[in-house]
């Protein structure tokens, strides 16, 4: 068990919010990317916690140092690709080629550094003024002369309380789905086919929505089949005969 200050350390990071021991658990289970963890923020949180206490718990500090070091190592390994491993995977000739390329790159930079040093020596007798150049701030945009009365009228218009928010939609009453189930079943007992849009044309939007839910229920129960020739075209509802239902059920089984 960790000493109390470390275990109870509450963290509020971009990638994680919660106690420190949970963070460690998630990292060890690889459910959290070490790269996303701001370790400096963890250290700050711990130091702040220490500052709140009258005495320093050396054991807790030691424990914390070990854990944070491990975290740092994890993160560092993630951030830096293992070049040695990459080189190991190369054939000897390829490795020699890669090494030669890197050496040539370094040699060129070294030569460039020599060139810079010579250039600097050559420019030693050039003197100029150094230091930041404080630039004038951008001129403020001046407003055109204003009439105070017009201003007060504008402010008064803004000071008007906003209209009350309507809660009318919260009082909507939804008819029961069963009502439409019965209605559609009765209709299907008289007719084999009907158009949904025609049947609900005179209903409110809420009632239409509930009627549609009833339609889905009937389809789910295998009582009807639905067809639509194109998007937004009328939905056609057909009754499925008992025999077909039986066949369908038998085939499904």
């Amino acid at each position, binding site marked *: 068990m960790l000493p109390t200050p470390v275990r109870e350390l509450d963290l509020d990071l971009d990638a994680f919010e919660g106690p420190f021991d949970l963070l460690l658990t998630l990292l060890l289970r690889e459910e959290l990317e070490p790269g996303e963890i701001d370790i400096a923020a963890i250290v700050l949180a711990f130091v702040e916690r220490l500052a709140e206490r009258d005495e320093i718990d050396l054991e807790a500090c030691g424990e914390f140092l070990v854990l944070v070091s491990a975290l740092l190592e994890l993160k560092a390994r993630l951030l830096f690709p293992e070049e040695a491993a990459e080189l190991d995977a190369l054939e000897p000739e390829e490795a020699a080629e890669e090494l030669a390329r890197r050496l040539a790159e370094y040699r060129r930079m070294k030569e460039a*550094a*020599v060139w810079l040093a010579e250039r600097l020596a050559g420019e030693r007798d*050039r*003197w100029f003024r150094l230091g930041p150049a404080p630039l004038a701030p951008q001129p403020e945009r001046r407003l055109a002369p204003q009439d105070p009365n017009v201003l007060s009228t504008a402010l008064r218009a803004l000071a008007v309380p906003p209209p009350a928010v309507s809660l009318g939609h919260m009082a909507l009453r939804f008819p029961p789905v069963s009502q439409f189930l019965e209605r559609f079943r009765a209709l299907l007992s008289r007719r084999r086919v009907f158009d949904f849009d025609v049947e609900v044309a005179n209903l409110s939007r809420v009632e239409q929505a509930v009627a549609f839910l009833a339609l889905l229920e009937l389809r789910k129960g295998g009582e009807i089949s639905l067809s639509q020739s194109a998007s937004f075209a009328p939905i056609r509802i057909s009754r499925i005969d008992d025999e077909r239902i039986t066949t369908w059920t038998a085939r499904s089984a």
Partner: protein
Amino acid sequence: MDSTLRLIANNPVDHLARTVEALLVVASAPLTVSELAEATEDDPERVETALGLLRERFSERRSGIVLEQVAGGHALRASREASEACARLFERPVERGLSQAALETLAVVAYLGPCSRPEVARIRGVAADSAVASLVERGLISEAGRESGPGGAVRYRTTPLFERVFGLESLAALPRLDDLGADTGEIRERLLAVASARAS
């Protein structure tokens, strides 16, 4: 000695040239033609003409100050013949004590920038932390965003001060990288020779 100091006179851009001269005296960093045109509220082409007049007037051996084109702009500096007197009175904090490591790091950033400390370390084979910190402190390089990906490292690039200190009109004035150092083939041959000598 060349001709004596010739005052700007009898030229249609006389007045503008005097204003540009004043701006260059006040500035502590090179000013571009567009900055000068904006400050003088004048035409960039006329500013170029005014700069031509000033360049003629403020040149080596004609004046104690010299107008030069450096770091992508125009700036005044002391003439070279006054450099010893300048050295007795002033310090050169930016370039004083630049180490070999700092110069190599500066070269990497100048050629490959914006680049990060790990990139510099990969090329040089040693950590570049203190060299980068020293160059940032001197104002020769500055931060230029971060690398993409988790915990993206800070990237650095050279500053206009770098170009000014090294007397470069721009980074394009650096020698071509291909013209520097030995070719890869030669190094590879030498590596193979060392390897076979060890094996035998």
